[in-house]
């Protein structure tokens, strides 16, 4: 589904236009069918999307992701059994072990990408979605949307999952290594989070609020 591009000479209303954020080409915005995506006709970048039942799905999936995330933080992801001595790793535990071993900078990097950013992202999304669902625009909505946009780059839960797999293989030769319950929660979280991100389009979010006549929440 592409949006029509504009040729010189026509002078359409600015509000019906959108510029590609990757090549600056102007397009005339058209209403998309549910599930439709508009792509730039020149460079193929995604311009805007109309995810099916966006608000409800994004809210449901974000809530599910939040529940999975909280649960997986309390249960072990992997445990290692070396001749009866058992050690376990949790999400927070791996950041803490690096700090305890004197690598605070790397610990902070792990903490930021696996704990701080995902937590902030889930909070920010719920902050936007819950009031919206009830017809309110939350205070500071533009700033929070901006934060969501930033945070999306720095959350690396899916990379961490692959890291766990690599560590399982690496230690598998040396000791008995058992995947913990949180490994499955982590795998589920990666998919739920990806679906939650796909169900949300910030461009579309503004339209939903405008179309529903959302009131500011005081």
């Amino acid at each position, binding site marked *: 589904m592409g949006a029509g591009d504009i040729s010189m000479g026509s002078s359409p209303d600015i509000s019906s236009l*959108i510029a590609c954020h990757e090549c600056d080409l102007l397009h005339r915005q058209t209403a998309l069918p549910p599930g439709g995506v508009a792509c730039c006709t020149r460079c193929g970048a995604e311009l805007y999307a109309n995810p099916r039942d966006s608000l409800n799905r994004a809210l449901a999936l974000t809530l599910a992701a939040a529940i999975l995330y909280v649960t997986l933080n309390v249960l072990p992801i992997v445990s290692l059994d070396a001749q009866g001595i058992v050690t376990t790793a949790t999400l927070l535990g791996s950041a803490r072990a690096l700090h305890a071993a004197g690598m605070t900078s790397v610990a902070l990097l792990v903490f930021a990408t696996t704990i701080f950013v995902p937590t902030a992202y889930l909070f920010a999304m719920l902050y936007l979605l819950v009031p919206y669902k009830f017809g309110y625009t939350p205070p500071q909505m533009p700033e929070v949307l901006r934060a969501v946009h930033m945070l999306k780059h720095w959350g690396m839960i899916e990379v961490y999952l692959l890291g766990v797999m690599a560590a399982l293989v690496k230690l598998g030769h040396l000791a008995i290594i058992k995947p913990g319950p949180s490994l499955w929660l982590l795998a589920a979280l990666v998919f739920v989070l990806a679906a939650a991100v796909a169900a949300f389009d910030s461009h579309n979010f503004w339209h939903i609020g405008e179309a529903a006549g959302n009131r500011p929440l005081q």
Partner: protein
Amino acid sequence: MSTPPVTAAALGLLSCHDCGLLSKPQDGHMACPRCGAPLHPRKVNSVARAWAFLIAAAVCYIPANLLPVMQAGSMFGSQKDTIFSGVVYLWNSGSEPIALLILFASIMVPLAKLITLTYLLISVQRRSLMRPLLRTKLYRLAEFIGRWSMIDIYVVALLVTLVQFGGFATIEPAPGAIAFGLVVILTMISALSFDPRLIWDPIEDKA
């Protein structure tokens, strides 16, 4: 149809970096009328910022690969592992797929990212007209794969957490991990600073 495609810049319109709204700035008032974000025609100091982070990343790439990222100690002595020796170890112990994954994510991806961003920055500064679509796709690829290099940092974190058996066996992180983490972050910031619209600007001016 021979009319050239029209860009926002050609009509003096600015699009908001945050909410995407298009507006015509009036009397130098450079803020988005919908969300209030400051408006800029292109990302601010894009080329200089991207270069600065890229050069810093290239400098860190050397210690990241030469210094050990972790140190395994046991009652039989200690052994230091660089990223590459870790790959060799995995390969020799029969885990070829994981060895290739780490080789790809930790050594080849950062190097490919350094080369790609260097090429993009030079081509933009020379106002190259060559294959803008291909260069835009290269940029997207560099932006997308960069995060996967973090795998090795997480592997080190997990091994340090799990292998703590006192005198029997311990794994400690080593300084190479700091350099490696910096390479990942710096190349990511460099890619985020780069504005792909700069690839297309010379093509507009030519038309």
